[in-house]
């Protein structure tokens, strides 16, 4: 099975964000692979490994990482390769600086198609910098395949279908989808492995194809920014919360509150 995992290089979310006008400053700041994408890489690797050891279809196939970003995004690709992915594709082009989610989806879909036949594309539910959450669905549309969002567990995978549990507000859906398809995975779908020393050394020898926009037969117009950030304001400080004095009914009140919040 050929699996593609989308990975994004983002400014380290553990450091205070710096702005460049109305967009996030991306150059000259410490970057990392989006922590949300580690789950995607792990999911891809696990499916590949499961197929390799299971008695179903043989484990032939590869996990390919696809990323769009500045040259520094190579770090995110290498990171995924050192976790165990087989190869990478990085699309870098000055024209793409400041791209919106729509343009990103267009570019990623072109890169995925150029890479060859695929069975499954995995992305994180949303990025940890932009948080639009629109990319996986848009990507599926461009690729012309179904999309299953917010996957919290991958139940089974074989050559033709994928069975997953999909997080909903009050539980989960069990979804079976024919492949090829795009899925977006939640943080917590698995525990991403860390790179081992051998993994890091092996990653140095794995191929990463570097593509520009013209390699994808796309022009500047195709990826023109259609979305504009008109205003930025600071998030409101959280308020102090509600204090429940215990007059004997506190436990019940807290339980009601949690039910309302759909936590229990």
């Amino acid at each position: 099975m050929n699996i593609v995992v989308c990975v994004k290089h983002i400014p380290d979310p553990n450091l205070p964000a710096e702005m460049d006008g109305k967009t996030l400053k991306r150059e000259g700041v410490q970057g990392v692979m989006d922590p949300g994408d580690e789950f995607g890489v792990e999911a891809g690797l696990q499916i590949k490994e499961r197929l390799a050891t299971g008695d179903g279809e043989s484990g032939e196939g590869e996990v390919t990482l696809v990323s769009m970003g500045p040259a520094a995004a190579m770090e995110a690709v290498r990171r995924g390769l050192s976790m165990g992915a087989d190869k990478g594709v990085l699309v870098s082009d000055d024209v793409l600086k400041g791209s919106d989610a729509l343009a990103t989806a267009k570019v990623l879909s072109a890169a995925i198609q150029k890479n060859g036949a695929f069975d499954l594309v995995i992305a994180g539910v949303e990025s940890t910098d932009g948080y639009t959450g629109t990319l996986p669905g848009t990507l599926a549309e461009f690729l012309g395949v179904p999309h299953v969002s917010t996957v919290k567990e991958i139940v089974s995978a074989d050559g033709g279908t994928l069975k997953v549990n999909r997080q909903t507000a009050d539980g989960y859906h069990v979804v079976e989808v024919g492949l090829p398809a795009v899925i977006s995975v939640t943080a917590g779908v698995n525990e991403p492995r860390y790179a081992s020393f051998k993994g890091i050394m092996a990653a140095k020898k794995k191929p990463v194809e570097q593509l520009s926009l013209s390699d994808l037969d796309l022009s500047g117009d195709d990826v023109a920014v259609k979305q504009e950030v008109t205003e930025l304001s600071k998030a409101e400080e959280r308020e102090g919360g509600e204090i429940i004095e215990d007059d004997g009914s506190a436990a019940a009140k807290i339980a009601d509150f949690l039910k309302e919040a759909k936590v229990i």
Partner: protein
Amino acid sequence: MISSDLNDDGMYMEIQTAIRDLCSRFPSSYWRELDESRMYPERFVEALTDAGWLSILIPERYGGGGRSLSEASIVLEEINASGGNAAACHGQMYTMAPILRHGSEEQRERYLPEIAKGQLRLQAFAMTEQDSGSDITRIRTSAVREGDSYIINGQKVFTSRVQHSDLMLLLARTTKRENQSRSTDGLSLFIIDLRQAGDTIEVNPIKTMFNHETNEVLIRNLKTNSSQLIGEEGKGFSYVLDGFNAERILLAAECVGDGRWFCAKGAEYATHREVFDRPIGRNQGVQFPLARAYASVTAAGLMRRSAAGLFDAGHPCGPEANMAKLLASEAAWQAANACLDTHGGYGFAAEYDVERKFRETRLYQTAPIANNLVLAYIGHHVMGMPRSY
């Protein structure tokens, strides 16, 4: 946060990221619980071993990573900077050095690949004895040749990690000190297979102020084959000396890691703790000790870098390695105190981890070599002043 001072090319950053990632799976609560129960960080050491980090100094031809000391030092630095304690396993990284550098090819083939695979632990080094202390040439443990074997008798103290090791290096006298023209001659280094030692070795744990497995080791008529002797009989002390520089540099890196942890923890607390209607870090009495400690830790990091660079290039680096250990252990201690002071009473509360790290980092000024002895070395060997030892 103080970034690593070795980040000029490739592998350093990658190692740093990978170790940070691995350590993030072992949060401070993990270390705190172990500290309370005085347990060995088995799961952590296993993870580190499996990922290949403890064997990166073993050459590739024996299945190790074949990386430089500078790179290895990042591993230990990051463990301590994450809030953990590398002392539980640093021995596994460098105790094999005498085998690698002075062992026979047969010994290397027998041990290094298994150590590299993580199937064999060599992380105990029995050198110190009660009656000789820092004056190692006066150790009394003896190894007497009998045909093809040596019979070893003696008593070691502060032998760390024996209970979590398969092999142990042991320094013993093969010729009496008074029968040697030089006090440093007549000492020999052995590889002891603890799994076969039976009741010839008795291990008595020594309780210390931190979670560090260290022991008194009594050796009674331990018979070991002469094939377990490293290098030549009588030359053991020079082999030990030979490994000192690497050990000093690696420990300096651990101290730098501790120093970074204390500075970051202190700065964070100083910024958020409000007393008298303002963050305490606005008071220079709180801010400056942390800033000063940060400068010391950074400077010590540079000394360690310089020493590691010389070591990796194959140059003599005794003065630099010793100065790195001295400065880094002092800088870590300075940072520890600034961090503790910043935390007020909470610094003493276990759940803040400060008191634990405080206890742990204190060791580096005393072991594996007391800083006085480092100063004596610098004063005499480097600066040419009269000898005190």
